[in-house]
């Protein structure tokens, strides 16, 4: 550093300009450059930058809005799904109940029908048995009558006319029935 003042001391005598005193052209050109730069930054660069920033924040806000919309949409979809699911569940429960009551009804029907059928079959069976009994009874009556007459003919050894034999058989049978009834 010491060399600087040394040199200054030598030059100072010869009229070196003082660095603190501005030359006129120095001030002039400095001002010109400043004004030009100021205008360029003010009118060109910073508005462009501001426009970019606005655009960017708008884009960010738009993005946020879009995301919010998507979220709302998703929420709505979820809502619908949930309601639909609940509805479906209720429907299923309803159907199950219905099925259960239907099944009970069918079961009861079937039971009733089976009972009816059984009764019918029983009745039929009774009727048939009665008819068969009747048939057996009448055939037996004839058979027994014939047999008894045949037997008595053989025992008596004489033939009886049919009218007499029939009256005898009837009388016999009537006695028999009367005996059966008193017993």
């Amino acid at each position, binding site marked *: *550093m*010491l*060399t*600087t003042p*040394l*040199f*200054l001391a030598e*030059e100072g005598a010869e009229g*070196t*300009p003082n*660095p*603190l*005193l*501005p*030359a*006129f*052209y*120095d*001030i*002039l*050109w*400095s*001002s010109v*450059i*400043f004004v*030009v*730069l*100021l205008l*360029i*930054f*003010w009118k*060109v*660069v*910073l508005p*462009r*930058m501001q*426009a*970019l920033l606005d*655009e*960017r924040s708008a*884009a960010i806000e738009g993005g946020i809005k879009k995301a919010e919309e998507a979220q709302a949409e998703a929420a709505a979809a979820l809502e619908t799904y949930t309601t639909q699911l609940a509805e479906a569940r209720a429907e299923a429960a309803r159907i199950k109940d219905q099925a259960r009551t239907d099944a009970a009804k069918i079961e009861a029907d079937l039971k009733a029908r089976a009972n009816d059928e059984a009764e019918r079959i029983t009745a039929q069976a009774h009727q048939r048995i009665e008819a068969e009994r009747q048939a057996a009874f009448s055939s037996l009556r004839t058979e027994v009558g014939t047999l008894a007459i045949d037997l008595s003919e053989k025992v008596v050894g004489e033939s009886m006319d049919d009218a007499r034999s029939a009256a005898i058989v009837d009388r016999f049978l009537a006695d028999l029935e009367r005996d059966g009834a008193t017993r």
Partner: protein
Amino acid sequence: MSLLASAGSEPEPFHPPSISEFFPQVFLFQEPTIAWLGEEDPIFGINRIMLVRFIAAAVLILVFVLGTRRMRIIPTRAQSLVELPLGFVRDGIAYDLLGEKDGKRFLPIITTIFFMVLAMNLTGVIPFLNIAGTSVIGVPLVLALVSYVAFMWAGIKKHPGAFFKNALFPSGVPWFLYIIVTPIEFVSTFVLRPITLTLRLMMNLFVGHLLLVLFFAATHFFMFSAGGLFPLLGVGTLAFGFAFTAFELLVSVLQAYVFAILTTVYIQLALAEEH
């Protein structure tokens, strides 16, 4: 010292840095002249330093006009290189200290000051330019005046009539202390502010240039003229030259930041309700 001084008798003498480096020959527009500070100065004179300033300003304009031409929402790498410093001045200096509303009003001035100072500082370490455009008093003085006018204008516009009262008679001080406080406030606010702004910037770059010249001139002298064991010393001075070049880079950015932020602080103080 004696080494350097006695070298004067060698065939190629040591060239110490000198003040006249900051006043190169005016080679264009030597006419017309004007009487200015007791001298005849060429009105439109252009010398090497003016040329360096024009180059710095042209590069600045090119970079920022072309760099902001087709801006994308998602920045490309080149675009973010332009956006980053603009964003730094906007958010880090203007909005941070002035708030968004006032910051936007003064942003053009602050941005211009920052980038003008930065560009003209950096010419000091750029090869072949090799002198900072701000190391001659014109630019620092003009910018300091701009800053001065800006904060006065801000204050007067915000507090018409009350600005000078607030600045010179701070509230909360007993009246008899105004005898001492008011002159101090006057000098520090309206006299020292522009002077310190000018001198801080100019002297930083001025001294930086002298130091660099000293180191590199000494290296040249030690390496090629002094002979003997002096080249060893030259290695040392060369290393110092590199170190100080890096330091000058730091100073360039720092001084641009300091100039811009002080301008902003002055505006902020002028806008403040009460001092």
